[in-house]
């Protein structure tokens, strides 16, 4: 392009009259200056509360998504398969030393108290009631939740979720609801696996390493244990799975700020899930002991 010359300028001067229907001109500079109010303590408090509010609203949406037809069976199967594939092996590998540590600790403690015949009962109850749901929670939050959060977060920053909404499909119904059900189901199954592996590990350490008798191990367990112990463990696991999926989905779907935002979201979601699950575990255990009478000896 050649630089404009005098002839060009005169041409433009004659050609341009003021345009007819414009809005106000530029540069009045009101908008930018009026901004930037707030800041300080109250804002931080309200923004924190707002985060909680958004999370609860999201949970309600997700629960509504759970009952809405049609349920996304395909997505559910894929997710259940995916979550179990990332969690089964670590869960089993964590469960063996966990059961062994409980057996060793309780074995020596119970012997000091002179109640060797009850080592079986103590270690099995500890594994089934507490250790197994906790291990399940750690694995579901750490392996399943982080994967869910990273997946949804990546979709969010690639605008896939926006695109889905624009195509008239609710991502909460389409993506989150199947993940909640999948995580809850896998957690329940994982809890069973961890219980079996943990009890087997405890049995091995008690009988083989510490010289306990198999008969005493099983008999004492039957004297103190009851079916509701297993039931409460499963209830815990189902709730842990659902909560982990909810928190992970929420953080994934609200991720912002590019790839770093996804990393931050995963980090936050895992930390928050751990805190929530341990608190929830305490509450359920406390309620369980109030509601279900324990067997005497």
């Amino acid at each position, binding site marked *: 392009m050649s630089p404009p010359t005098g002839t*060009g300028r005169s041409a433009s001067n004659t050609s341009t009259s003021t345009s007819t229907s414009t809005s106000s001109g530029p540069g009045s500079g009101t908008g930018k200056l009026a901004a930037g109010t707030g800041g300080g303590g109250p804002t931080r408090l309200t923004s924190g509360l707002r985060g909680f509010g958004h999370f609860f609203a999201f949970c309600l949406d997700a629960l509504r998504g759970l009952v809405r037809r049609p349920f996304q069976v395909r997505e559910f199967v894929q997710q259940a398969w995916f979550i179990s594939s990332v969690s089964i092996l670590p869960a089993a590998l964590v469960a063996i030393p966990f059961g062994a540590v409980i057996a060793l600790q309780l074995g020596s403690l119970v012997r000091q108290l002179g109640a060797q015949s009850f080592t079986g009962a103590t270690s099995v109850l500890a594994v089934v009631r507490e250790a197994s749901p906790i291990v399940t929670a750690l694995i579901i939050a750490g392996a399943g939740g982080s994967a869910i959060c990273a997946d949804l977060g990546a979709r969010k920053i*690639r*605008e*896939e979720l926006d*695109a889905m909404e624009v195509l*008239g499909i609710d991502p909460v119904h389409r993506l989150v609801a199947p993940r909640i059900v999948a995580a809850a189901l896998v957690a329940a199954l994982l809890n069973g696996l961890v219980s079996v592996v943990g009890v087997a590990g405890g049995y091995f350490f008690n009988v083989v390493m510490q010289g306990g008798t198999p008969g005493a191990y099983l008999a004492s367990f039957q004297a103190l244990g009851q079916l509701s112990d297993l039931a409460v463990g499963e209830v815990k696991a189902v709730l842990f799975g659902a909560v982990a999926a909810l928190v992970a989905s929420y953080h994934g779907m609200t991720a912002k700020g590019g790839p770093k935002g996804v990393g931050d979201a995963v980090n936050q979601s895992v930390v928050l899930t751990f805190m929530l699950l341990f608190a929830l575990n305490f509450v359920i255990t406390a309620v369980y002991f109030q509601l279900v009478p324990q067997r005497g000896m």
Partner: protein
Amino acid sequence: MGVEVRVEGLTKSFGGQPVWSDVSLTLPAGEISVLLGPSGTGKSVFLKTLVGLLKPDRGAIWIEGRDLARLSERALYEVRKLFGVLFQDGALFGSMTIYDNVAFPLREHTRRSESEIRAVVHEKLEMVGLLGAERKLPGEISGGMRKRAGLARALVLDPQIILFDEPDSGLDPVRTAYLNQLIIDLNQQTGATFLIVTHDINTARTVPDNIGLIYHGHLAMFGPREMLLSSTEPVVRQFLNAQRIGPIGMAEEKDSDELRAEAEAGVELPPLPPIPLQLAPSDGRPRRAEQSPGRWCEEHDVVPPAGSFQGVRGSVWQPTEALR
């Protein structure tokens, strides 16, 4: 036939920081409009507000007698079926092949058989020139192909309103020219209402029927193409002609001192370049909202810059002899 979109007094802010305020415009049914603006003025935010992905602070968006800003979540999902949106990077679902991506809206919203779906997907993929790439995943194709696949997916439900978020960013000039031609042809065939957000000047000069310019948190001007291209309003003039002289600075708007210095130094605005002809549909038929070149200027007693409305339709603007 397309649907009219009427925006009234729309205002949006993030955390107390206004993005733009009091935006009022009407996208005429079946016409192509372009929304321009310097980077970071919230053009994409405007697009997302228009489809209800973001809630405006104030104002209304009227589509078929319904105000999008006040619809319930469920009603919003219904209205969105009128829209097709092409996102900046195509926003394809990364876990699905191109074919499944394009078939996705059909599978979710219609009860068509798989063979009917295949026919529609085939047609749309042919339209954007992606036949043969159906089995590829979005990660395996180039950015331009992703964009075209995104367009095929946006078109598959025969939308009444099609929104483009920077269709030409990251594309080479040849592909941009093809895409622009595709937009014109689509508009001529479907009669849908188009809104293109861009900062490609050549697209803005030749493709639309209407142009809008967002600048400094408000809509500086919106109206027929010829009105903006012949406008002497400093911002419009500076932006549409990609000049440094004018109120838009590198970071944000120039302050008054700079402007005064510019005026005192006697820097004069370069002349307006000639107004090019609009791109024509490739089948030779007229555009939906076609008017004879220069009609708006004649009706409003505006003399267009010398050399306007000459040359081959749709060719890239070249300075004519008169200006050299």
